[in-house]
């Protein structure tokens, strides 16, 4: 038995035709985050520190749907959520409805360590963030052109969808995974 680590950047209807300029930065980000996690484990950091460290890196990457790359609500705003759990103590912390906190996962950890609760949401979570002095920015920091476009497509298709859903093109049948999956989910 030795150390192990696994991370993800989201699952969905990721098209096989993902162009290289969109695939390469995501694979590079996965490789970089894996290296950070492996180095922390090799340095005997506790797993709770390791998972927080890696998820912070993934939150700071605009290519994945968390933190900087968060997708948008129907109002064009961001409402981020995160959760962290320690296997030994089964202590855990969760947050929802964040719109200004740079790293939601770190606020979730503070809920676990600094409050008698497990889960804080919306105004209460934002107020706790201010009280704890975690890094906050203007809500516009999280809004990327890519996600504005994604919201536009979803509204046109009148769909609520996961980040990787292919736009419906009039002249070209959609690359569907019907029979292999539900193309409603991306």
């Amino acid at each position, binding site marked *: 038995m030795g150390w192990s680590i*696994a991370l993800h950047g989201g699952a969905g209807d990721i098209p096989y035709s993902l162009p290289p300029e969109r695939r390469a930065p995501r694979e590079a980000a996965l490789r970089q985050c894996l290296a950070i996690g492996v180095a922390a484990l090799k340095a005997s950091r506790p797993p709770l520190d390791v998972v927080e460290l890696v998820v912070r890196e993934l939150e700071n990457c605009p290519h994945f749907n968390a933190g900087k790359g968060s997708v948008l609500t129907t109002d064009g705003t961001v409402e981020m959520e995160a959760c962290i759990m320690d296997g030994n103590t089964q202590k855990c912390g969760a947050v929802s409805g964040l719109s200004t906190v740079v790293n939601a996962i770190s606020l979730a950890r503070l809920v676990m360590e600094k409050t008698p609760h497990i889960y804080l949401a919306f105004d209460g979570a934002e107020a706790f963030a201010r009280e704890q002095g975690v890094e906050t920015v203007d809500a516009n920091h999280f809004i990327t052109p890519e996600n504005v476009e994604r919201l536009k497509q979803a509204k046109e298709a009148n769909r609520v969808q996961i980040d990787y859903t292919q736009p419906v093109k009039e002249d070209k049948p959609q690359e569907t995974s019907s029979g292999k999956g539900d193309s409603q989910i991306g």
Partner: protein
Amino acid sequence: TVGCVAVDGSGNLAAATSTGGLVNKMVGRIGDTPVIGAGTYANSFCAVSATGKGESIIRATIARDVAALMEYKGLSLREAAAYVVNNVPRGNVGLVAVSAKGEVTMPFNTRGMFRACATEDGYSEIGIWPSE
């Protein structure tokens, strides 16, 4: 959604997940990520971080079910995770998980999942689609 699970050489486990949710979601909608036992869970058997359609993941209590199958049925991490993922409608879920013994698994029933893993005995993987 993004997530990470880790186990150290002594079998200590932890899980973490973070997300912006669904595109075009209603304001105030809560997904699976912050719901303990749905999108994120860890105990002394395993640590799990799930991703996909939150409503399906909550209904199936994905993360806790993986741990419960290991605890109550004695399944391995790989068997437990495969069983849980295969019992959710196709196209809805993926997860990453590690066990106290250092096992790692990354099953998904969507077309793809951005994923990466490494173990102390030298195995590592970075992928998007199943065939890789």
